[in-house]
């Protein structure tokens, strides 16, 4: 920021009038952003400290959090959702990001033909809405339609088919993998961009030293794209702990079977908005939103202040 020489500073000793235009340029963005994003966020955090007692909104301190973490009506649901959310995130980290890196590594090979076509195809699901993705996979995995048993039969695995989305043991994994299928394009693109930014000379130098193929990838390229891997990890983290749409579309607001796919986003929706017999509860909704905020804030801070500083950046 400071390296931009401002003309007004160089005009010297002439006393300049108030620069109204700066305010005019900043104001619209500032107002909309503050009024619709920052203030509601603060208000939500504040609401989490209040609850309705005898029909009046009363300050209860951390009472709502105690209820959420310890009260038997809430705690089971909450810890279940949190655990599922952590699993959801781990599956993304273990499946989505390695596949993304592998695809990017292959796409960035020099003189690869049809690279643009592959890129376009693999990125396509990322643009579809969760509603489309959710329903398509619901149909494909449905035992009624028989597409997946048929496909698995082609590779001789028909006996392994089961209605994964309907079974408590496998539903969460199935939903996570659907989400991985949809979002693998993002890590792929960001890593691909990072790989393209590695200068030719570095690769040539490695080749002169006889470092090629696999060992070139592990020893030369991977360390150079670590910052990009850090970015996709934090993006995945924020996205996963804020997810809602896919589970809502595939499994409904109750996140069945038997809460097996319930994550913080669906819990927030049910709590705040109510569902079937459950009435909406503003204070507890705000409490869950606050917990989600703290989790995301912790992740982002960890990334910004610890991980990002440890990763060595190379300037070319």
């Amino acid at each position, binding site marked *: *920021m400071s390296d*931009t*020489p*401002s*003309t*007004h*500073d160089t005009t010297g000793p002439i006393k300049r009038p108030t620069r109204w*235009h700066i305010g005019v*340029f*900043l104001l*619209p*963005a*500032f107002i909309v*952003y503050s*009024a*619709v*994003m*920052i203030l*509601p*966020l*603060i*208000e939500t955090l504040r609401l989490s400290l209040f609850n309705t007692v005898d029909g009046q909104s009363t300050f209860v301190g951390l009472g709502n959090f105690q209820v959420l973490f310890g009260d038997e009506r809430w705690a089971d649901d909450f810890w279940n959702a949190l655990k599922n959310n952590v699993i959801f995130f781990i599956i993304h980290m273990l499946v989505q990001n390695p596949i993304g890196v592998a*695809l990017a590594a*292959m*796409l960035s*090979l020099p003189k*690869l*033909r049809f690279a643009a*076509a592959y890129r*376009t*195809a*693999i*990125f*396509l*699901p990322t*643009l*579809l*809405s*969760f*509603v*489309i993705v959710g329903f398509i*996979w619901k149909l*494909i995995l449905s035992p009624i*339609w*028989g*597409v997946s048993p*048929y496909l698995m039969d082609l590779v001789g695995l028909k006996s392994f088919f089961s209605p994964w989305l309907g079974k408590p043991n496998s539903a969460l994994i199935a939903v996570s993998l659907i989400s991985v*299928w949809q979002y693998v394009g993002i890590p792929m*693109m960001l890593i691909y*961009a990072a790989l393209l930014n590695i200068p030719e000379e570095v690769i040539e130098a490695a080749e002169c030293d006889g470092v090629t*193929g696999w060992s070139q990838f592990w020893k030369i390229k991977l360390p150079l794209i670590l910052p990009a891997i850090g970015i996709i990890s934090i993006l995945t983290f924020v996205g996963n702990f*804020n997810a809602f*749409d896919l589970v809502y579309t595939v499994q409904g607001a109750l996140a069945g079977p038997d809460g097996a796919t319930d994550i913080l986003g669906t819990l*927030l929706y049910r709590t*705040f908005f109510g569902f079937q017999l459950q009435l909406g509860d503003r204070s507890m*909704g705000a409490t869950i*939103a*606050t917990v*989600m905020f703290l989790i*995301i804030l912790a992740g982002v801070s960890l990334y910004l202040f610890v991980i990002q500083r440890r990763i060595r950046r190379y300037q070319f």
Partner: protein
Amino acid sequence: MSKARASLTRTSLVHLALISYAVISIFPVFLTLINSMKDRNAIFRNPMQIPTPKTFDLVGYYTVLGQGDFATYFQNSFIVTVVSIALVLLFGAMAAFALSEYRFRGNTLMGLYLAIGIMIPIRLGTVAILQGMVATGLVNTLTALVLVYTAQGIPLAVFILSEFMRTVSDDLKNAGRIDGLSEYSIFFRLVLPLVRPAMATVAVFTMIPIWNDLWFPLILAPSEATKTVTLGSQIFIGQFVTNWNAVLAALSLAILPVLILYFIFSRQLIRGITSGAVK
């Protein structure tokens, strides 16, 4: 000789892997599109077959267009997306210009303040957003959605656009000032045309989450008159679960605009990502 053969094997393995993954990515979409144009028996008997003259049937589309109000849904999504993008680009570019062009007290602070929204999702403020919209009578209006999406899009727009605006030559702007242009004319007539490629990138990045969002339409504007395509198809499909023709046709109708836009803008989008716009 053997080295050339080894590299040939390696290349074919790479192609094999990429083709397999590309097929995995496209197949579900393809399957939906072909089955939406078949009659009910053919959908179940031969899901893999492309429609033949015998099995070709558009009954699903008739059901969807007859029952659901998809024209309205499309119109709502279109209005919300276009207006939000326009506001994000205008407000975002103005703020980015102020931050990158002028030195003033609080510049860095303002930049950081606007950057919070890049990482913290706006969804977490939903409880109070709904409250505010109820208080101002904006519930079930498209305005509510436009406001939320504008606020959601501004942080990234400011971030990307101010990076680009720093690269606009100072000499050009100073020449404008000497010629007596006001700061506003410098922004609108000199700088904006020069950052048009970056604006296109921001537009594409802003558009996708808005068009696909389910959360805010569900909470802020679920009425029949304000449903977006995403919410409309979600509810329509939920009601027609057993009518496979209708479900597949509704899905295809929701996919098509995205596919068309993708083929128009994919180059822009991919160039935007790979040029390091989201570094």
